[in-house]
């Protein structure tokens, strides 16, 4: 689905990403881990077309998105990608429900009624019904993050990008979000997330470890294994090297 081919990124004379290549298959759940400042978030935004790259290319179902102009990229993001950020970024002048439906209405592929219906279904699935008309400052962090996932899903994207989705959540809320991500992936949604949290990464099928802008390692979990334990052991290896 996404083929990352030897991408590099230089920012103010500093090489932030260096010669990175990997692939994300349809329905796959990929987590990107690494120490602070390693370039993992930059990788996420580069792949999703939110940030430019200096060299290489990103093929999204055969389309080289690094060659698209700003307008084409916006359309691409709107229709094919969903985004969830650490601080559940939402527009403060819209209610929760309008925040969720906004990308659907902007895409204008379906009727407003259909979009509202889907938004309601998504909210029900995320167990946040009843907060539709609330202000974004009137709900808990967990509720807001789940609303962000609803917004990301409103246009039935091909892939969901998440940047530290549980970074600002307490333990209970983290569990809720993780369970939702697992559910979505089980239903066929392709997911790529950047995280510090091994609990989140353990839900992924594939984990990339980024260090100094390069892929330092890649771990693919087999079915039936204790992912959390295996991941812990794998990460210890990197920590020792550091």
């Amino acid at each position, binding site marked *: 689905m996404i083929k990352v081919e030897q991408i590099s990124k230089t920012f103010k004379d500093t090489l932030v990403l260096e010669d990175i290549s990997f692939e994300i298959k349809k329905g796959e759940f990929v987590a990107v881990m690494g120490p602070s400042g390693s370039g993992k*978030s930059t990788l996420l935004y580069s792949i999703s077309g939110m940030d430019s790259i200096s060299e290489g290319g990103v093929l999204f179902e055969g389309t080289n998105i690094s060659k698209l102009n700003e307008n084409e990229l916006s359309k691409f993001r709107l229709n094919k990608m969903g985004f969830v950020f650490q601080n559940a970024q939402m527009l403060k002048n819209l209610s929760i429900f309008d925040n969720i439906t906004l990308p659907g209405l902007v895409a204008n592929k379906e009727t407003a009624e259909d979009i509202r219906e889907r938004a309601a279904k998504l909210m029900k699935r995320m167990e946040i019904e009843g907060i539709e008309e609330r202000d974004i400052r009137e709900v808990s962090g967990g509720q807001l993050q789940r609303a962000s996932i609803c917004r990301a899903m409103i246009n039935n994207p091909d892939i969901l990008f998440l940047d530290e989705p549980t970074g600002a959540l307490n333990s209970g809320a983290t569990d809720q979000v993780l369970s939702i991500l697992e559910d979505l992936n089980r239903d066929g949604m392709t997911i790529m997330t950047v995280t510090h949290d091994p609990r989140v990464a353990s839900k992924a099928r594939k984990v990339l470890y980024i260090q100094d802008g390069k892929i330092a390692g890649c771990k693919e979990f087999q079915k039936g294994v204790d992912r959390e334990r295996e991941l812990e052991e794998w990460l210890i290896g990197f920590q020792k090297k550091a």
Partner: protein
Amino acid sequence: MKLLLKLVQKDFKRNKVITTALAIFLILSAIFMAGGLRVAGIMSSSMKGLNELAVPPDYLQMHKGTYDEDAYQNFIETHDYIKDSLIVKMLNIRNSNIIINGKTLEKYLMENGFVVQNEGFDFLLNTENQIAVVEKGEVGVPVYYVEELGVEVGDTITLQEGDYSKELTVTTIIRDSTMNTALATSKRFLISQADHDEISLHMGKYEYLFEFLLEDGTSTSVLEADYKDAKMPSNGVVLSGKAITLINAFSYGLIAYIIIAISFLLIMIAVLCLSYIIRATMAEENYTIGEMKAIGFSGKAIEKLYQIKYIMLIVVAVVIGYLAAIPFGNFFSSSVILYCGNGVREWMKWVFSFIGVILLGLIVMHRCHRIMRKNLKSTVMELMRGEEKKKKEGHYSLPSAGLKHRNLTIALGELKCKWKEYFVIFLVFVFSSFLILFPMNMRSTVNNPSFMTYMGVGECDIRIDIQYNENLMEQKEAAQTYLENDSEIETYAIYQNGYVEIKNADGEFVDIRVQSGDESIFPLEYLNGSAPAGSQEIALSYLNANELGKKVGDSITIVYKEEEHPFIVSGIYQDITYGGMTAKAGIYFDVEDVEVYIIYVDVKDGVSFDKKTDELRSILSDSKITQINEFISQTLVGVMDNMSLVEGASISISIVLSMLITVLFLQLITAKEHSAIAIKKAIGFTNRDLRIQFGIRILVIQVIAIFIGTLLSKFLGEIIFGFMLSSMGASKITMLINPITAYLICPVAQLLVVFLTVMVGTKVVRKYHIRNQIME
């Protein structure tokens, strides 16, 4: 200190556009403040200087015709509060008989008199502000004609009457403390005694100016009452020294008042912008301020750190403003310097403008201090958590039918929630619109034929004045016969003007000018009541009614031919002619009492006013023929000359202000909304969408502001214009607006300027990259 300067330097680099825009605002405010006060200083020094050197009279009574010299002499001797007196013999010469550089003055309304230099006081000064001296064959020309006709030293003036012709060479330009301004309807030319004697044998008619200087502390009203009681010569205009000063101050001072008014508005806007910027900056710096407080920085130290930037800006603005105000103030005072000279207190222009900029600096610094104090009151934790004390902005709802016009819907929705943030830009747009339209509307009002109604008569095309002649009656009849037989004349009406005495509020009799004739031909709109009907009713001009303390329905006693006649005030009308002191009544003056016959003429549609005026001038050569639009513009020349200067300046300022505030606000608002911009980009909005949304918000605000500004320029403008003209005799002005200019061209031009600025200013959204925003 070094550290502070480094911090400031860094801050300037980071916020180049905002800092520059704010600096321009402050500099503009300083220029206007210092410039306005410089004009005021120059004006004050010039007028004082002219008065000190020329010594204008405390009381001046004009009179045409003979008078009893012994009685007058006796009056002077028996009133010891009269310090000095003077009888100026002014030889009035018809404008059509005065030729300057080959052209007659017939189209000018000014009454021109030739005098010799006075002795004792009321001196006519030259451009060095010294008592002017002319020799035989020379003439001193009023400075008014330097401005109006470009007369220069060395030019020739010819006086011609029949076969007699007298050539005079202009050797000096005259500053006249009594009749200097365009608002004074008489002008004095200075000639030698020999020429005066010679010319008077061939042409002209004497008018006497009885002038008095009073002992200190004596009121002119005492002299006025005694003068009337003694039945001294008084069939003309009377002026007190106070009235002369008022006319001069109005004429020269108008521009200073306007500039000072604009500067106060600018200062208000600059302070509002500054407050907004400081609040916006401080909000961003909350965390850092919290940290500084946490490690023990005192509130005062933090305040000093942040305030130094604004103090430096203010100092720069004050210095630049003060220096730039020198050419700026000089430009706007060129007229008063031409008419009055530099004066004797030149220090005033330096000190006034200095006080102005210091005051501006203090106002802005005080405001800075207050906002910072308020911001620094928060606790360390409040600051570090970034807790906003502001109320929630509220929500807007997306339409249930979907987003057909997504940018419009979102822009309007957000504007609904954030309208308070746009209050300053709204005020600036209102102010800009008002500033463009107000002078423009004043000009179109004065240029509109309907403005005639403020000249004491209904709408007409041409005015014929028959005066200064032994045979007024014959001339009037000749004019009447011609007009009667001219097929191009639609209608005309003849009025006779004369003087009667009226008892004022204090029970004293005063002379007033009364116009008598058929008021139904050119009906006039009355402020109150209606035109006089029958022989027992009188209508008073607004100023006369005020001065006499009369209102519609009041009774009034008129003395004509030493007989008292009871009259009722039937109406009050506006009139700016003859100093605003006129009346209308069915009094039929004896031929010898008629001062002037005025004929108002309406020509048929399609007849050229210019052609008809020229034709009438060639046939009725003894009369003064003026097109009404010329009559209006010449009557208002003192006001409108200044206004056209202000009009140009105000349009430029408005455009600069609109552009500046737009750039400034776009910078501040996009910086404030960086997070929303990033979210919108992430969910699929393009940079173009975001630029359109910001553009819509600004333009919607501007459209509303233009609407309000347009209304203000009409309704508030009427009040201000009425106030400006009330001293001349018209208090209730209806703005006669050119709808295409005011309601179409101006708004479109303003919108276009802001639209282009938005196009450039919104490019800034590109710099708010999602990556930087989200990863913060």
